[in-house]
């Protein structure tokens, strides 16, 4: 017989009348996000094997400073503190990281999976107090739009990487020719998935037209709003696919760089 509770809420972790496996989704979220954060942190601090010829890992692009041919401004900057480990990824990864951290989808997902706030719908929480996103630090989630602007720029940079990945240099003659490798496709899929995720962002939807009450008579803005809305409907799917593929793209480039995998040239 079920427990009767007519009074105040019972703040006991996982207390619920639900009979389904409500814990499965938050558990998978916990495992998936934890695995990604652990891998990306490890990869970001490596500082090597992040490029292979004309391929560069998305965790290191754009490479502002570094010793690869992809570097924009040359070698490691002299102002970099000596006590701090150096990796080109550390200069840029904060931007996509904070974009995902403040993303509306991820917020809902990690509040459940990592903070049990609530663990799942209609399931009790371990804490009595709740402040929501009203005070520091969670009030900072409101600046998600600024990270969105930067994330859109990253899509441009990663698209340039795909363009560069279409040009193969002959090691003997030194001549460059147009071609397509498996690595090019891996990088291209990465841009498509990240594009689907970034361009379906709730803040972008608001910025392109959502803030207006009337979009009639503004055909370009209306079209943009419809496009972003279309991507936004599957925001969770884009979020997970792009997350997985970013990790896989880094692994692909890393394996090619180490020499464990050999990039297959299609033409």
């Amino acid at each position, binding site marked *: 017989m079920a427990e009767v509770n007519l009074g105040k809420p019972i703040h006991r972790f996982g207390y619920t009348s639900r009979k389904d496996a409500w814990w499965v989704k938050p558990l998978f979220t916990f495992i998936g996000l934890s695995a990604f954060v652990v891998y990306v942190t490890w990869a970001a601090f490596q500082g090597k094997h992040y490029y292979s010829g004309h391929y560069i890992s998305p965790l290191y692009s754009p490479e502002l400073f570094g010793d690869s041919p992809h570097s924009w401004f040359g070698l490691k900057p002299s102002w970099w503190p000596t006590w701090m480990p150096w990796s080109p990824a550390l200069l840029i990864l904060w931007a996509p990281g904070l974009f995902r951290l403040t993303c509306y989808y991820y917020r809902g997902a990690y*509040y459940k999976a990592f903070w049990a706030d609530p663990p799942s719908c209609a399931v009790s929480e371990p804490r009595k107090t709740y402040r929501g996103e009203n005070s520091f630090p969670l009030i900072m989630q409101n600046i998600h739009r600024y990270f969105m602007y930067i994330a859109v720029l990253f899509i441009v940079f990663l698209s340039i990487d795909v363009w560069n990945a279409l040009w193969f240099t002959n090691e003997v003659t030194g001549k460059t020719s147009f071609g397509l490798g498996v690595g090019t496709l891996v990088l291209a899929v990465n841009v498509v998935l990240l594009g689907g995720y970034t361009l379906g962002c709730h803040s972008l939807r608001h910025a392109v037209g959502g803030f207006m*009450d009337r979009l009639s008579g503004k055909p370009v803005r209306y079209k943009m709003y419809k496009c972003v809305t279309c991507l936004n409907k599957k925001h969770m799917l884009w979020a997970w696919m792009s997350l997985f593929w970013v990790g896989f793209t880094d692994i692909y480039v890393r394996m090619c760089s180490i020499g464990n995998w050999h990039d297959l040239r299609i033409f």
Partner: protein
Amino acid sequence: MPTATFEILRGDANEGKFETYTLEISEGMVVLDAILLIQAKYANDLAVRWNCKAGHCGSCSAEVNGVPKLMCMCRMSDIKLDKPILVQPMKAFPLIKDLVTDVSWNFEVKKKIKKFKPRPPDAADGTWRMAQEDIDRVQEFRKCIECFLCQDVCHVIREHQLQDKFIGPRYFVHIAGLEMHPLDVEDRREDLKKTDGIGFCNITKCCTNVCPQEITITDNAIIPLKERVADKFYDPVKRLFAKFRSKKEQ
């Protein structure tokens, strides 16, 4: 015919217990049918609120196996019958009797929301003109049947009982319908932040998941309102631009 065992919460705000009823299930039956059958056969004093039995009146809200649902839209064929089916009143509201709760707090909240304030009429005859694409967005919010399942499942109300600081997803949907209306010129963003407590929503989407009208509450109402609040209170660049853009233009 298969049989199902129901454990139904019987009692009032002071005391209650689960009582067990077993009955035969026929094809096409929903939970509300079973409850009404139990009421007719075994428990004439079982209190249950219902009206249309078609998912339109929003009266028969309850929790079936711990999940907030309209009993009339909950098919018996979707429920496993090997274990007792738990039927309880909505947890977020004070219990009156058995499956009936006092949802009057919701109506009090609604009274405090700034009303629809249209711009001056577009035509000399006192009428307005609206484009279909402008009204499409708020049309979804008009589907709400006020079943209050979203209020029931929202942990801010259910778990933390912040009714005095937070109006709940139902009323964010209501405000979204007003705030995004092409004719409305009222600004409710300050109320949303300061008295309606939109900052308490942490976007878990539970309200969207339980909505029987399939209103995309979180993505289409709450998050756009959060963004509008961010425009006014958290985005200095946007505020600068807003100085050059009148509400009329929006």
